[in-house]
């Protein structure tokens, strides 16, 4: 119950501060640009293959519109999620409100989970706000719903992982800007880290986010990918929990 109360307060707080709305506006603006650009490219490609029956057979909505759109959109999360997570603990430290939670009959784990789930609810709202893109597609064409679901699973998994990393970052500082920069740097490193690898199956590549998003974006859900994202969330939340516990003993 306490987890729920803390989560609700957190989600409320994101929506009652300008930061939440600005992040949401930025997110919709950039995803909107990506969508229009993706559709534009798809239109251009279909015009190119009008007189090429072989090409026309290869051109389809999932591979040439849905997948590129969601794939490109994942990079936006690297910017958006740290902006949501930066205030989670930093603001509590700055405003000295952490004392209220620490002296309530609530465990530190419940505080961590409550904060995380509250912010995750906001991210879900942000993702839901992009549903009109696939809905228009559904109205005008016949897209593969699996690819769309996979796209959202990819966005959600990545947000959940980055949010946990950002939560951990914000538990180390009372300065939101520091929390933002650290979370952003860590997210970007996770995102592009795989580029250092020699090949797609190299272990370094498997450490990065991108290699685990590929199959999901195609609409194929693999257990190993889910375990990877759950692992990032688990490790980050555990570290945040221990970080808060250490507060009492410093």
């Amino acid at each position: 119950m306490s987890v729920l109360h803390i989560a609700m307060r957190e989600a409320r707080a994101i929506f009652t501060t300008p930061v939440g709305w600005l992040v949401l506006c930025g997110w919709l603006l950039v995803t909107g640009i990506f969508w229009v650009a993706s559709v534009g490219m798809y239109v251009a490609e279909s015009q190119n293959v009008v007189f090429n029956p072989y090409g026309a057979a290869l051109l389809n909505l999932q591979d040439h519109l849905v997948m590129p759109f969601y794939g490109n959109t994942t990079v936006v999360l690297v910017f958006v999620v740290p902006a949501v997570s930066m205030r989670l603990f930093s603001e509590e430290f700055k405003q000295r409100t952490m004392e209220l939670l620490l002296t309530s009959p609530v465990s530190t784990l419940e505080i961590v989970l409550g904060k995380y789930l509250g912010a995750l609810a906001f991210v879900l709202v942000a993702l839901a706000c992009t549903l009109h893109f696939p809905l228009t597609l559904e109205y005008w064409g016949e897209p593969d719903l699996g690819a769309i679901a996979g796209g959202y699973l990819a966005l959600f998994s990545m947000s959940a992982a980055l949010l946990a990393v950002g939560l951990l970052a914000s538990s180390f500082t009372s300065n939101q800007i520091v929390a933002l920069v650290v979370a952003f740097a860590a997210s970007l490193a996770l995102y592009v880290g795989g580029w250092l690898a020699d090949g797609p199956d190299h272990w370094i590549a498997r450490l990065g986010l991108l290699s685990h998003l590929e199959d999901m974006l195609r609409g194929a859900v693999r257990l190993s990918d889910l375990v990877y994202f759950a692992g990032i969330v688990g490790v980050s939340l555990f570290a945040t929990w221990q970080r808060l516990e250490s507060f009492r003993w410093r």
Partner: protein
Amino acid sequence: MIQVENLTKVYGATAAVRGVDFTVAKGEVVGLLGPNGAGKSTTMRILAGALGATSGRALVGGVDVFQDPRGVKRILGYLPEVPPLYTDMTVREYLRFAARVKRAADPRAAVERVIGRVGLQKVAHRLIDNLSKGYRQRVGIAQALVHEPQVLLLDEPTSGLDPAQRVEIRELVRELSAGETTVVLSTHVLPEVEAVCDRAVIVHDGRVVAQDTVEAFAAVGRTVTLRVARPGDALPSRLLAIPGVVGVEPTGPGAWRIAADRDVREQVARAAVDDGLLELAAHRALEDVYLRLTRGEGEP
């Protein structure tokens, strides 16, 4: 109700609290008194479960703060030095949240009750961000009271308030203690302790240096300073002969400080009048003890 035994808290190389011992009985109001940095806030934060101790034991309502922190937090209300307010919420929303995380039996009813009790009716619908310091402090107190705790810890509840607001908070504390709530409040305002507390615990440099009932501390005339124009040789012995006087200590030419276990002003005046009595001043024992124990070494 509260039992603190040999409590010690060390931050790195500095000890904030070193072996604090005191007990508080049910319904009692105890003032923790001491200069800034004496360890009052640290002691309170440990009791409230916001901070661990390096060693020692603390029991609240018979429950060990370190063994069962949740059990203690259920029966304890705490107002930190800076009230922990979410300024983007209205007073009522904030208190509802506090009531829920503190597991008040009926959160909505508890909030309305505490709003009435602390006098927040007029601002209940306003954003905390827009409230004055006095109201913010009251919201902080309401937050500590909302789950009807048996023990209330108030860290400098009247700091930064105007005199009328101070009086209101003192009245509230008195009301609460009449209702069997045990209150520990910290302050460095001596008259406040005399006004509301049953007992005072003076803390200095992380140690309890004196504790007694406020009546004992507040007794007037137990310490008397005397100045005469023509001190005769026999004056000190005449002063010592007064029943109740336990010490006479010269503080300058023709000046003495007299310690007694009762009010001896009249007798001292009579004994000194022929030596040219110039000045006779009675000191409040609390102020006296406080200054003697803490003077000159405030901030570490």
